[in-house]
C-alpha cells in the first residue's frame, strides 16, 4: 500500500470511528406508542364530621392539604385490607 493510500485509509477509519456512536433514524415518522394514561385522582370520598373534630384534624395536619392527608389514610386503610 502506498503512503497516500495509508493516509486515505487512516482518514476513513477515523470517520468510521467518529460515527461509531451515531445512529441513523431509519423510521423518522414512526409514532411512539402512547403511554397508557395514568389514573387521575378524580373521585371524592366524603364524610360529615363535627366542627370540633374538624378543628382537631386541621390542627394536626399542619401545612399539608386535607385532601392529601385523607388520601394517605384511605390508601393505608386499603393496604391493611380494612384494618385501622
Amino acid at each position: 500500500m502506498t503512503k497516500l493510500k495509508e493516509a486515505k485509509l487512516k482518514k476513513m477509519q477515523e470517520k468510521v470511528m467518529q460515527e461509531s456512536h451515531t445512529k441513523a433514524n431509519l423510521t423518522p415518522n414512526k409514532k411512539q406508542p402512547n403511554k397508557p394514561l395514568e389514573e387521575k385522582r378524580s373521585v371524592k370520598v366524603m364524610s360529615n364530621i363535627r366542627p370540633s373534630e374538624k378543628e382537631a384534624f386541621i390542627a394536626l395536619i399542619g401545612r399539608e392539604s386535607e385532601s392529601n392527608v385523607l388520601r394517605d389514610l384511605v390508601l393505608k386503610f386499603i393496604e391493611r385490607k380494612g384494618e385501622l
Partner: protein
Amino acid sequence: MTNKTILINNGNLGRMGKTMLSYTLYKTSKAPFKYVTNDLENASIDLVKNVKNGDLFHFPNGTEIDMDFEDNIIFDFGGKPDDRLIDVAEFVDMIIVPISYQSDSELELTVRNLNTLIEANPNIVVLINNTDPSDIKLVTAALKFNPAFKSIKILIINHSKYIRRLANDGLTVFEVAERNKGDATRLNKTIIPQFKELFKHLEINI
C-alpha cells in the same frame, strides 16, 4: 425447508444497488421468492414489467404489510424513510447493506445505518458494489476498524458494465452470460463468482 427472508437496505441512501441485487436474487434463485418493495416509482428497473404477476408486492410507507409470510421473501426497502423498516429488519433472517462508495459521505451514512440495523438484527452482510477497485480494500479495512462491525460479513461485487444491462435491458448478469459466450467468459472470471459467493453465504441455490 424453512422459508428465507432477506432485507436489502442501506437506510435512505439511494443508488446503492438495492434493486439490482434484489432483482438478481429474485430472478436467479432456484426457490421462488416473493418480491416486496416500498417504492415502485424510483426503482432502477421496471419491477411491474419484470417481476412475475403474483410475486410482486408494493407496500408504500404508511400502509400495513399484509401478505403470506410463509414464503421466501426479499424486502427491497429504501431510498425513502420508512416507518416499518426496523420491524422488517427484526423479522428477516438476514440484512444485506449494499454500499456503492463514491466518497466518504456514503461511508459515514452507512456506518450510521449499520449502527441502527445491527441493534435490530446482527445478521448483516455489507455488499460493496459499483466501487473503484482501489477503494474496495480501503472501505473494507475502514469498516473492520470498528470493533462493533467485526462480525459483519463483507462481500464484493466489482464494478462492471454488465451490471448496467439490468437497468437497460432487464437482464441479470447470469442471463447476459447465458446469451453470449464471450460475455460469459468475461463474467465467469469475477462477477459471477462474486454473486455465487453471496448466494452461498445466503444459502440460496441457483
